[in-house]
């Protein structure tokens, strides 16, 4: 086990392997096992900021809830509003007024289902309807959408289709759900693969099915997807959000569960020779997680890199067309757009133990670029280890 000396520059931290002249992709983390090049720096930071307390937990009083009223006609539950006196600065109530409460969902057992209405309701089983009814509680106020465009009605229709794919087409097996926090902000960080983001879709379904109270995993999607007609609409209506810094921070502030693919577009560009070898991680999710005091849960997706194996990526063509990837796969472009559809591979989703960096470094750690880069590499390492252990 080789030792890595103290970092000499930011570049050393940004890619410790590059400093040793090693290529990414061949067991990249072995040399880091047992070493901690920033220990001294981190201890200083810890001493300055002090260990952060665990995230605030809000134990909401349990009450019997009913399924959300029909969309368009729902009236929100009565909410405490501020009197003019309470709104005045300096009021003792100001802290309470400005504190955002987490968007929570009720437990399935607390949902009383109304009789099924319409074909979709009849096709869904009662447990699925309870899940969807619980997720509908994420929308507050009079409008049938939340602030990011999530629509429970669209989610209901989509859930039916994707749950069928989940069970019959991708035959998803998953484990480690106990590592997903039951409430409060959390960031799931996983590997990305496949030309179409079925890994994210399967994770959303899996998390909704396996958590109680059901949680909606909100995937952070690339800005490019937000500029595509209809695609942007679909993503928004099923709860996915374009990855801007403000969006990320707001969702965590509201106590939501985020699913990020820190490889970004590079993840889906991987050719078959590099499948399941993680690309460099972006660092924004670390900064936001530290600021929001959110744990990071590493997630391994086994199967996503096999669903549409890329033989070649014609980068000049992609650049000229303004698209992230111009792939050649065994079926694309030979079968036209149908060639983009995923193969019926078996999916396996593994959730790792949460990484509670926020407890050690606190929100101040987000301002240290070297620390953030280091932590991003640590998360990458954790995801890679999960993949390697479970890819059998």
């Amino acid at each position, binding site marked *: 086990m080789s030792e890595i000396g103290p970092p000499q520059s930011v570049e050393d931290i940004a890619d410790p392997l590059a400093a040793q002249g090693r290529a990414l992709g061949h067991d990249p983390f072995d040399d880091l096992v047992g070493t901690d090049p920033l220990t001294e720096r981190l201890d200083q930071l810890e001493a300055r900021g002090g260990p952060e307390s665990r995230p605030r937990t809000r134990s909401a009083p349990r009450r019997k809830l009913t399924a959300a009223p029909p969309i368009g006609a729902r009236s*929100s539950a*009565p*909410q405490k*509003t*501020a009197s*003019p006196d309470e*709104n*005045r*600065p*300096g*009021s003792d109530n*100001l802290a309470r*007024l*400005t504190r*955002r409460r987490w968007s929570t969902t009720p437990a399935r057992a607390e949902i009383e289902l109304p009789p099924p209405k319409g074909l979709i309701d009849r096709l869904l089983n009662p447990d699925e309807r309870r899940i969807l009814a619980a997720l509908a509680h994420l929308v*507050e*106020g*009079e*409008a*049938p*959408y*939340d*602030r*990011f*465009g999530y629509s429970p009605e669209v989610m209901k229709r989509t859930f039916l289709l994707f749950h069928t794919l989940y069970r019959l087409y991708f035959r998803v097996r998953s484990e480690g759900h106990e590592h997903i926090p039951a409430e409060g902000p959390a960031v799931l960080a996983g590997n990305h693969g496949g030309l179409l983001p079925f890994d994210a879709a399967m994770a959303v379904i899996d998390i909704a099915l396996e958590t109680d109270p059901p949680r909606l995993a909100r995937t952070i999607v690339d*800005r*490019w*997807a*937000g*500029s*595509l*007609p*209809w695609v*942007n*609409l679909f*993503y*928004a209506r099923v709860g996915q*959000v*374009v990855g*801007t810094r*403000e*969006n990320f*921070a*707001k969702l965590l502030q509201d106590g939501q569960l985020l699913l990020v693919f820190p490889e970004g577009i590079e993840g889906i560009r991987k050719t078959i020779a590099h499948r399941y070898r993680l690309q460099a991680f972006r660092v924004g999710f670390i900064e936001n997680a530290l600021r929001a005091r959110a744990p990071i849960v590493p997630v391994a997706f086994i199967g996503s890199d096999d669903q549409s194996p890329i033989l070649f990526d014609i980068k000049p063509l992609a650049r000229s067309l303004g698209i992230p990837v111009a792939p050649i796969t065994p079926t694309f472009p030979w079968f036209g757009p149908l060639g983009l559809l995923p193969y019926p591979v078996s999916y396996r989703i593994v959730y790792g133990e949460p990484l509670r960096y926020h407890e050690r470094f606190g929100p101040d750690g987000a301002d240290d670029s070297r620390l953030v880069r280091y932590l991003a590499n640590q998360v990458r390492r954790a995801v890679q280890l999960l993949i390697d252990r479970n890819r059998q």
Partner: protein
Amino acid sequence: MTRILITHADEPIGRRIVKNLYHDPEVEIIFALGSGPPPRKFDAYLAGSEPRVTYTRLDHAKHRPVHDLFHSAAFRAADVDTVVYVPRHGAGASASTPLVGGLSERTAESRLLLQQCLETRAIRNLVAIGSAFVYRLPPGNANHLSEDSELNFDPNVMPEVRAWIDSDMIFHNEVNNDRLRVVLLRVPTVVAAGGYVYLHPSLAGRPGSRVRALGFDPICALVSDKDVARAVRAATRTPVSGIFNIAGEEAVPLSMLARWTGHTTIPVPGPLLGLVDATERALGIESRLGAGGGAHLRYGFTLDTKRAAEELGFRSQYRIGLARAGDGALRLETASV
């Protein structure tokens, strides 16, 4: 006790602010300006031998009338210490409106008013209402924007939005002024009782047909006109300066808002929006798109109001939704919760 001057008090948001401040015991005198005759609702305020409200007709964009007002005996006697700049709601800043001294009407008004506030030593507070459409919108159906988000300096932005940005920058430049406390409130689409919508680049104005981008349905942040008045009241009382986002809880897609407000929308493929804009200009029709095709027709936003809550103590109190009116029709309404 505060003595307040309000611009465009004859327009709906201005009327709402006058009404709110009229019932504020901390406000001694309201010096209301308007471009038209006083609204009938002001009759009660203007009655009596020594009314708390005075109303003056004025062309806000012309230098001479504004200068004369601020140097008039009546104004000096009122001893105004706070100015509330309410922008005109209509399409005054559109391409078809004549420019004032080479500037759009809204920009000219903002500049003149700020100049007079800086020159009049008695005035110590300026509260200006700006638009949240000044932000640059990243791709996405809904983007959460804070006061620190980037502004839209795209040269192809529509004239209405450009005028908002110019006005915003004029006030923004003085938020650190030592003598004059400047508060800029950025508000999204304002909804008033009866289904009226103000300050939206596309939907403001009379019901009719509007163009929208095919395959996009951006989320629109909403705020009640009553909440805007409450925010102005909070800004006049609170000794802070700076820029604050003001918004309500509701956010709805553009198509739904258009339907609620009686507009019909015509979906046009994105690449053709620029062509539609050019055609409208050629025909002399008021342009609601801009050469860039109107980013607000593709990408939506909601606002982070945390700063307003923490520093101004403002939190929205009115909900916006459809309600059945007396004639049985469903209308967009606001209601206190």
